[in-house]
């Protein structure tokens, strides 16, 4: 923006430059282009284990224990794989900028300016198309998975209106500062501070709060929904793995928020039934 010009006006485009395909080929012959592409691939492969490491982290306490959690993990896996090439490309350019292209570090600026690349139509179009396609893929994937998960948890449809799910278990989840209680309305209003779930049977949660906002997070089952005062949020899940899992409150709810956690016990149907009997709940249906 100074008054003196360093470079002349850009030369007019020659009328007879090589066709673009050949220019791409020529471009690929440039040493830096190849090296960056190789670097891109190398970094990409170095990042690849992340896709499994992320899942390993998520699976530490026994997840996935439901189809929903499986869908979530699949999403995380696919997103990781999809974002690795582009991340690796950016990292490759950063690395090559420092190690491949020349750099100087003294008090004075480089003796010679760098090539005045104001833009590059092919590069810009490639990037735009790639990032748009990627975003579109993520959106479509997300929408499909969300529809899938909503179907699995029957979203906001009332549990007793589900077709063909007569044997579903309904549980009223109540959050209050700082304890969760679980009421089984079909079993004589049996209430517990531990969440007992029958294996392989759909369960619907009517989640609400007595006071502030809590968040009902059944970690290994991939269930998460806010418990709001004065409103009921509905969700559901089918636990497909036996074991002890965790309910954690995932919305700051005051002093003992960190302690608003309890267990999930996924039991075989007969074990579940005998728990119901022992705890004084009769099967009313």
């Amino acid at each position, binding site marked *: 923006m100074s008054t003196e010009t360093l470079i002349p006006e850009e030369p007019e485009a020659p009328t007879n430059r090589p066709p673009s395909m050949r220019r791409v080929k020529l471009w690929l012959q440039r040493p830096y282009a190849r090296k960056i592409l190789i670097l891109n691939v190398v970094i990409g492969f170095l990042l690849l284990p992340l896709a499994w490491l992320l899942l390993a982290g998520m699976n530490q*306490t026994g997840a996935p224990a439901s189809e929903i959690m499986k869908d979530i993990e699949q999403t995380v896996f696919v997103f990781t794989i999809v974002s690795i090439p582009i991340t690796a490309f950016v990292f490759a350019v950063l690395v090559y900028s420092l190690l491949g292209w020349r750099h100087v570090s003294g008090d004075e600026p480089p003796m010679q300016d760098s090539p005045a690349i104001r833009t590059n139509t092919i590069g810009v179009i490639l990037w735009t198309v790639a990032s748009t396609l990627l975003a579109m893929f993520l959106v479509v994937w997300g929408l499909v998975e969300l529809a899938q998960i909503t179907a699995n948890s029957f979203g906001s449809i009332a549990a007793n209106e589900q077709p063909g799910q007569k044997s579903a278990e309904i549980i009223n989840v*109540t959050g*209050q*500062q*700082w*304890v969760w*209680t679980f009421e089984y309305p079909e079993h004589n209003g049996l*209430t517990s*501070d*531990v969440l007992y779930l029958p294996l392989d049977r759909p369960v619907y949660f009517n989640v609400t709060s*007595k*006071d*502030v906002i809590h968040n009902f997070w059944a970690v290994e089952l991939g269930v998460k929904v806010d418990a709001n005062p004065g409103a009921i949020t509905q969700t559901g899940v089918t636990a497909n793995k036996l074991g*002890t899992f*965790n309910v*954690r409150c995932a919305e700051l709810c*005051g*002093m*003992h928020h*960190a*302690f608003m*956690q*309890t*267990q999930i016990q996924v039991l075989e149907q007969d074990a579940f039934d005998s728990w119901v009997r022992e705890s004084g709940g009769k099967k009313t249906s």
Partner: protein
Amino acid sequence: MKKFLVTFLTVLLGGAIVAGVGVFNAVQGEAPPVLVANVVGTKTAPSGEEMPHAELYLDVYPNSSSQVPQPETKSPINNVLLAGQPFYHPSTSLQVPSNSLVTIHFRQYDSGGTIYNPYFAKVHGTVDGKMKWNGKEVSEIKPDEVGHTFTVHQYPESTQPYFFMSIPLPMNPANAKTDKMGYPVDPQIISVTFMTGEAGSYVWNCEFPCGDLYQEFGGPMQTRGWMAGTFDVVDV
């Protein structure tokens, strides 16, 4: 070199400030001194096993007075904000022995009302699922006659045994005879016995809305020393 000295001093000073503020705030912490349940003998568990028996005495007061001073707190603002609020006495930091039978004796001096969740009007987690209330054995009280509750619940550690205990403390009727401090002459006397497992750290709080602000769950309900505290099961 001088500038490196400045750098060194900056880091040192920064660290010192962090440490200083940290220590200051930790000292300011509101948790009162620990009240230990001492082993007084042995007692027979329902399984027939002889177990060490420890006892703990807790009182619940509607407010402080010259007879019952406020909880010990080093945070001066709490004395202002929580003046006239109910609290557990003499401490809310409790410690009981592991693998023992523990009896807690409560004297409840406060009034009360309706609890939000009737689940906490029932006794949970004691040896026989009952508590002794003014000499009677009961397993639940009326949900609209609750004074406070003593609800111990899980500390977020999967490496320690699950522990849940909730004791409803019945309210004193509004027409109860009071002494000159305003406390009932005959407080509600409750005692419960429960079994502890392996060592672990838990927290407890009151589930009856006896504080202030929204849903009466602010103030003392969210301050250790008043209506909430720690509950440590330790090996002795």
